[in-house]
């Protein structure tokens, strides 16, 4: 119960922390991609629906589209990457960087597609090449740190 409470209190706020990070002049961090990587490669499979919902709440704070659109934007990459979990998590940094770059492209594309389909366009649909590069470089090591911290630690899948 405590781990869920921590997830729903802290995980959405990471999207706001990314705003602070960017305002401080640091390279842009796409928390949506970070969460997708964690859910796809390291999270407890049985907890995925709740984790996804908590992350979607966070993205809805910073994005104009509604909550179900955020669930789709985060959930579809996770559903695609999940069968590749063993390959990507075991192969280390390079594979995770590739997955991060792919997610950094897929998330805005999905946001744009969902925005057009459901008439909920949002600014997050703009693809930024620089953000893709930073996602590939920064997110795998950042994920390695976050996995050792709550609330992520409590949902890590054990072998």
């Amino acid at each position, binding site marked *: 119960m405590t781990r869920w409470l921590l997830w*729903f*209190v802290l995980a*959405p*706020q990471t999207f*706001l*922390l*990314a*705003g*602070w990070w*960017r*305002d401080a002049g640091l390279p842009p961090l796409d928390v949506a991609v970070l969460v997708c990587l964690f859910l796809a490669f390291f999270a407890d*499979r*049985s907890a*995925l*629906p709740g984790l*996804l*919902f908590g992350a979607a*709440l*966070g993205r*809805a*704070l*910073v*994005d*104009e589209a*509604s*909550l*179900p*659109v955020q*669930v*789709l934007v985060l*959930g*579809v990459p*996770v*559903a695609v990457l*999940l*069968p590749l979990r063993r390959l990507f998590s075991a192969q280390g940094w390079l594979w995770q960087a590739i997955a991060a770059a792919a997610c950094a492209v897929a998330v805005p594309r999905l946001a744009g597609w969902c*925005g057009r389909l*459901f*008439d*909920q*366009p*949002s*600014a997050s*649909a*703009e693809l930024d090449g620089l953000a893709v590069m930073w996602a590939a470089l920064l997110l795998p090591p950042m994920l390695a740190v976050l996995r050792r911290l709550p609330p992520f630690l409590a949902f890590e899948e054990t072998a």
Partner: protein
Amino acid sequence: MRQRPAAFPVGLYGTLLLALCWLTLPTAFAPLERFALGATCLVPRLLGEWAGRPAAAAEPEAWRLAQLGAELAARLQRQDVEGARALLPGQFEPWFCAVREVAGDGPHRGGGGHPAALRLAVDHAAVAGCAPFVTKGDALVGFLVPPGTGAAADDAPTDPARVHLLHHRAAAPVAATLPLDGGDQLRLVVRAAATVDPAPLRADLWDDPYLAARLERGGHVVRTLALDDESPVPGGLRLGRTRIWGYGGAPGEATLAIGVFVVPPIEPRALSYVVLWRDRRRAGAAAEDPPPPVPARRLAAVVRDLPGAVHGRHLLVAGAAVPDGAAVVQDGIFLGTARGLAFGMGLVTSFAASRHRWSLLLLPDDDAVRPRELDGEVVSAEGAEACVRWHRRASGGEDERLPPGQLFTGSNGPHCPAGLWIGSVEPHPQDRSLLLVRTLALAGPRAAEVLVAGGTP
């Protein structure tokens, strides 16, 4: 075999399926979304309490914006009324009326797939003494729908009045004339086209079908024709310009017209004001002046920056429930539209951060230039400066370059009325379809107001 259930994430796929159901039935899930997001916003709300005291706008600035708003309304009214006044008998008196909402879904999707119904800022009872037709400039816009009939069958007299635009499938066909180059004219009937047609209106029932089939080029102005004194529509009102569809011949040969469409001069999504005509004979010689529209209720609120708010997302804390799409203003400055959450909160998206389509009003700096009703969307933004792509009018004005001026909201739903100042605007130096909008960059907590429409939505 025991690992298979774990390998197939039923929960994840179920959640995605639920999200699709949620998008199909948004009203059913709205309370859950408001509560969940509201609860999530409690943390930034709590932290925001330490962010300082709300600031108010400077008085001289508020006064200047009020003056600009009044000037916009006066210039629009003059422009919208004058065109049709000369065409109407003396017993008609104009009533410049704000549009509350443009509807374009389900049965209100009209010819060419365009929105085809309006709700006005006045109720059915108030427009009872008006003529059935609605105009804008010298153009015929549509017809009032009396309560108890058609789409207004379940409406009460106190509900907002409805207008069916000419391309609404329930709108009555209109007799029209089309002047030809040689001084002849064709008579025809103009009615709503199908939603899949290339234009909103279709020309039909020509008095000389042979001559009509030989129309080789479009662009002819089509105007209403009063068949007799009892005609429901006065003659001479503009319906639009023709667009010919047919088989193109070889160079030098005639085009075979297989369909003639009419493109109205008005883009429905951009409509913020229309003109009703009070018939003194119907209303009685001693008819009272039309009642003023019910002003929006103003909820006092505080707007706080969310981290990264330079990108246009803010937390709104109000004393009461905030409806979705409500305009948030600070002494006449439009801060954005809110999405209502539980616990008297909302999330505000600024104009610059939004990407949805807006109805806008442009007040040119030059007094001699007419104000424009536009629709467009923000395509990119850098801080408080946004680049807006405006959609050109359906006919004419293809090469039009918009003048510099002030940008205001148009009618963007019941809770976001026309006339709220957004920023100063100038045309893009390279692309005529783009406008550069400079909004005010406000930072820190601010005292604001949320506009909530009165009456029944």
